[in-house]
């Protein structure tokens, strides 16, 4: 886990109550010979919107199902509100799950779906009614309480799914790609809506998604997972600008990863790209051993931080040839070829110079916004 992540966690718990809502302590899950989750430790604070982000098969859903109690960890412990909960069955856990396919009971009305949990908890009738109406109000479904699930649209069904989970006032709400089945526009709306509801109810959310934009939009913190391990844990900003590994840099957003050799690690790292020596603002973790000069690394520069000019500018710069010019409305995307045909992507304002394929140009970047990541040991 990164130093950045740890510092962040310390800050959060300094602000909130001391015990995290949820804690995974060195949890591993094996299915026969396959390791789905590999030695994961993380903590989710109270009232935090926490995302598990990663490509399919990275172990994020298995992690969520362990939190819900549908899978038992092969190793490690799970703590809810500081109390060991590894063995607690799902129907006794203070967690509730929102399913990707909604999983609404098809033979029950919206109202009865939402009332299902409170009824199982044997709450008094007026209390059930009050809670159900409140939950339906929170997700703005009051008017459709008597409908059957089959009569609702996908977005409405997911609102009911959310209300059905929220009504139990869980310690942690678990969401398994809840917007995955919705179309793009509705998904964007629901992202904002979800964030609003989360702030309103103040419950910790653990949100599983493979969509990095979605995770960025909503999360307080994100755990990026790959091959069952947490690659990086941090705020969206940290993960975007200071990825610890090449995988994270590549998975989050668009990144130019220029092949380079390490010159100097430390506060102002330096790398050599071909003939030139470039300085960067930060450096990710270097796996295993002390960094040595000459280690293969990549210099990560985000497309929107690149400047593309025709005349050779002062300072560190790379010569490029314009490949494709793609108008994207908000800007122009330039697919460039750097030294040794290395592909470089730049995002420039739409009103910038009139670029044509084949044009020769130079790219330049702000060293403070460049970042060094180690190449995977091979």
């Amino acid at each position: 886990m990164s130093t950045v992540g740890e510092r962040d966690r310390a800050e959060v718990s300094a602000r909130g109550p001391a015990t995290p809502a949820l804690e995974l302590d060195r949890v591993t899950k094996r299915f026969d010979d396959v390791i789905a989750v590999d030695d994961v430790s993380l903590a989710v604070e109270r009232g935090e919107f926490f995302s598990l982000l990663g490509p399919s098969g990275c172990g994020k859903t298995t992690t969520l199902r362990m939190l819900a109690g549908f899978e038992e960890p092969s190793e490690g412990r799970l703590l809810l509100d500081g109390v060991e909960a590894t063995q607690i069955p799902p129907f006794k856990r203070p967690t509730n799950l929102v399913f990707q396919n909604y999983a609404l009971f098809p033979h029950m009305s919206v109202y009865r779906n939402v009332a299902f949990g409170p009824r199982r908890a044997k709450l008094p009738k007026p209390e059930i009614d009050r809670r159900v109406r409140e939950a339906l109000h929170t997700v703005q479904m009051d008017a459709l309480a008597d409908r059957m699930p089959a009569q609702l649209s996908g977005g409405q069904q997911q609102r009911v799914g959310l209300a059905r989970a929220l009504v139990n006032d869980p310690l942690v709400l678990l969401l398994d790609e809840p917007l995955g089945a919705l179309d793009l526009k509705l998904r964007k709306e629901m992202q904002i809506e979800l964030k609003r509801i989360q702030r309103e109810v103040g419950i910790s959310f653990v949100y599983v998604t493979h969509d990095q934009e979605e995770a960025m939009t909503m999360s307080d913190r994100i755990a990026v997972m790959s091959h069952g391990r947490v690659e990086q844990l941090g705020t969206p900003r940290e993960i975007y600008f200071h990825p610890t590994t090449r995988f994270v840099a590549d998975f989050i957003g668009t990144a130019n990863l220029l092949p380079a050799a390490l010159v100097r690690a430390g506060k102002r790292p330096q790398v050599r790209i071909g003939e030139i020596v470039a300085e960067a603002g930060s450096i990710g973790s270097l796996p295993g051993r002390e960094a040595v000069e000459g280690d293969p690394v990549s210099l990560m520069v985000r497309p929107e931080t690149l400047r593309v000019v025709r005349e050779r500018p002062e300072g560190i710069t790379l010569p490029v040839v314009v490949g494709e010019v793609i108008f994207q409305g908000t800007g122009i995307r330039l697919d460039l070829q750097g030294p040794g045909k290395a592909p470089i992507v730049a995002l420039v304002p739409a009103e910038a110079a009139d670029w044509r394929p084949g044009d020769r140009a130079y790219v330049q970047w702000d060293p403070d916004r460049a970042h060094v990541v180690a190449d995977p040991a091979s």
Partner: protein
Amino acid sequence: MEQAATGGARAGSARPVVRQVFWTIHRRELVTRIASAAMLAFGALILFGPFLLLAFLSFNDSQILAFGFQGFTTRFYEEALRDAAMRESLRNSLIVAGLTTPICVALGTLGAFGIARFVFPGRGLVAGSLTLPLVVPSLLVGVGALVTFSKIDVPLSLYTVAVMHIVVGFPLVMAIVTAALYRFDRSLEEAALDLGATRRELVWYVLLPYLVPALAAAAIFVFGWSFNSFTVTFFTVGSERMFTVWVFSKLRRGTNLPTVNAISTLVTFVTVVVVYIAYYLLRRSAVRSGQDVRSLVAGGPQQ
């Protein structure tokens, strides 16, 4: 037709090739239409024609087989309903079916749960064995029961019939309910457990309500199967009369039997009415719980 008119007009104006191609396509379409209509009519004729014929004969005032209309009468119905042997056979068949159905539904549902919801060593073997009564010819079930009951000195009666109907009937229910359970979305179970339902509550509030249409369909099928069953009934019934056996005893001569026409028409009519009412009720509850009624109808038992 409209297409033909506009297409023809357009083609007529200019290119004869286009016109020819158009008419070839159109004629082929017409031929397939006529062919499929003929095939359907033929299917309907062989499936329902004989029953309609019986209905016609039952109201035709003639003792002998006459296809010209000799006048309308209901006297054969009166005669048929006065026939004590027939009344007894009908009553016995309904009693056996009524006895068989609930037991089959209970056993079949248990079996379906056991197979679809548990993982244990030898599950495949148990599942396969429980479908055997549907695969083994009912002739063997019948004669096997006959020799066994006689060996252990159990006199044949309505009870022996009912027991053997149960043996073949519950796998039928099991097949329907298992299919429904496999169609059931497992995440609904997880949702229920996640929301604090115990396993008992899960079965009671989520699984059983979902299964109601399938159970109803299964009950109707198994009732009908028991009532209509001939082979097993034939070998396992004693001195009591059963409806199918009674009809069979009337048939070996191949002549017109007006009272049999009448009672057959009556039974057929009641069957049709019951099946249609059952279908509408099923469809309503299936639609309410978001299931496709087709899966209940076409996915049903086919034995």
